[in-house]
């Protein structure tokens, strides 16, 4: 039986300034919403930059002095989630689709479907990558691709970063993540949370090989074929206006919140199985745990448990803390010696009640 295979466009826009890439996000989503663009898979690269999530504030999330001193551009994405550091050693991937091509309008289901397909593609390179809710692709508990989406009417864009090589120390210097003070321990701790293809494979895979792997997996998932293309005339026209808006301080500073509204709070306690320390980036206005970072030498098996718990706690409301932790441990078998889920809740609560340290 012959089946017609739909053709989607493949764009590779190479390495660009952050403003140009974000402007293209805006343009391609808008043109898709207007039915002026076909469904599109885009690959992209960035000159060194720090990218804020749409609703984030640079003062809260970034070490702006370091960014300025090291020519790291600050930009704002049109997608949600947290700030990221991006340079030429990472690959961006993006899908621009119409909801009718997905069979569902449920946002979490769409995220899962796309991430699982991309994870399968990454896995063909010789590693085992899997989707980790809500929006990560990970290898053995360590994040290798963070993702997020934007929608406009029935059009959507879903994008991710893939770490081909990655400078963890630079990430720690650029982002105000609630890790230990920058040190060998902090770098080792960060390496437990993120990984990259070069480290996993023992060599740097070619960009072409990675693109082929992801494209092939998405083609299989959506039963389509990809055909290389360029921006069309409508997109070219929209791009000029979009770049003028995005490549401007008013866009980058559109949300400017004081750093003291997002303090880092910390606590540590000794248990039978060792020391458990927790650092929390806390949204004081919404009373929300933006990011949690466990460290110390407490015994927990499987070892990835606390990193998974960090993912589960991301963006949790303070008043739902206990239920998130309880649900998390009910869903898995974990050996923590004498440490209990209630102990973990207790240390987090102690941190939230403690005087803040500098963000």
């Amino acid at each position, binding site marked *: 039986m012959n089946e017609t295979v739909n053709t989607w466009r493949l764009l590779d826009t190479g390495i660009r300034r952050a403003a140009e890439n974000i402007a293209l996000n805006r343009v391609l989503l808008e043109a898709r919403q207007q039915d002026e663009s076909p469904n599109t898979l885009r690959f992209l690269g960035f000159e060194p930059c720090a990218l804020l*999530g*749409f*609703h984030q504030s640079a003062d809260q999330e970034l070490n702006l002095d370091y960014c300025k001193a090291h020519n790291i551009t600050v930009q704002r994405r*049109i*997608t*949600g*989630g947290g700030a990221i550091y991006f340079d030429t050693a990472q690959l961006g991937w993006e899908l621009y689709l119409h*909801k*009718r091509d997905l*069979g*569902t*309008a*449920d*946002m*979490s289901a769409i*995220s899962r479907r796309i991430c699982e397909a991309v994870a399968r593609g990454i896995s063909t390179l010789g590693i085992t990558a899997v989707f980790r809710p*809500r*929006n990560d692709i990970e290898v053995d508990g360590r994040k290798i691709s963070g*993702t*997020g*989406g*934007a*929608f*406009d*009417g*029935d059009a959507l864009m879903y994008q991710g970063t893939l770490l081909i090589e990655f400078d963890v120390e630079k990430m720690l210097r650029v982002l105000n993540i609630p890790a230990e003070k920058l040190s060998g321990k902090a770098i080792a701790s960060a390496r437990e949370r993120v990984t990259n293809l070069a480290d996993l494979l023992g060599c740097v895979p070619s960009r072409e090989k990675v693109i082929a792997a992801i494209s092939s997996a998405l083609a299989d998932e959506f039963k389509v074929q990809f055909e290389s293309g360029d921006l069309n005339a409508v997109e070219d026209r929209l791009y000029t206006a979009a770049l003028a808006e995005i490549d401007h301080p008013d866009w980058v500073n*559109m*949300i400017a919140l004081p750093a003291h509204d997002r303090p880092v709070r910390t606590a540590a306690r000794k248990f039978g199985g060792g020391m458990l320390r927790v650092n929390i980036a806390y949204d004081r*206005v*919404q009373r*929300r745990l933006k990011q949690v970072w466990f460290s110390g030498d407490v015994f927990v098996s499987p070892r990835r448990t606390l990193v998974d718990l960090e993912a589960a706690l991301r*963006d949790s*409301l303070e008043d739902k803390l206990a239920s998130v932790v309880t649900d998390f441990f009910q869903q898995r078998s974990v050996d923590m010696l004498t440490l209990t889920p209630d102990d973990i809740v207790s240390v987090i609560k102690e941190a939230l009640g403690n005087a803040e340290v500098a963000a």
Partner: protein
Amino acid sequence: MATVRGCNLPDDLYYNVDNNVWARREADGTLTIGMTAYACSLAGEIVSYTPKKVGKEIEQNKSVCTVESGKWVGPVKAPVTGEILATNPDVAGKPGTINADSYGSGWLVKMKPTNWDGESGALITGGAVAGAFETKMNADGFGGC
């Protein structure tokens, strides 16, 4: 009150079904705007809300605010053209209010419409609400609130 696949859709409101947004016409002619329970269900817990500034004129089907849930960001679109009169400080402090009370305290903006009579005819209200949303949910492959 219409209920479609478990989603409450009060039939005294005016809806743009495609944009999943409602408008309530207040006694003084101003509008209160919000997301439908259906839109909230699709989005999941909303964690951020950034409204357009008070005083800004918004065209029909242009964004009155941007919301974020589960790392998805998108606009909520004006059902008719008008000026933003107020934004919701309670929602700014606790965006989950949009999910918890989408037709009450989770309202997004208040607007002064500039051409209600001319533009509101395209909105769905009353007995037509349930059927219009049933069609949309069917097209979206939606299971239920």
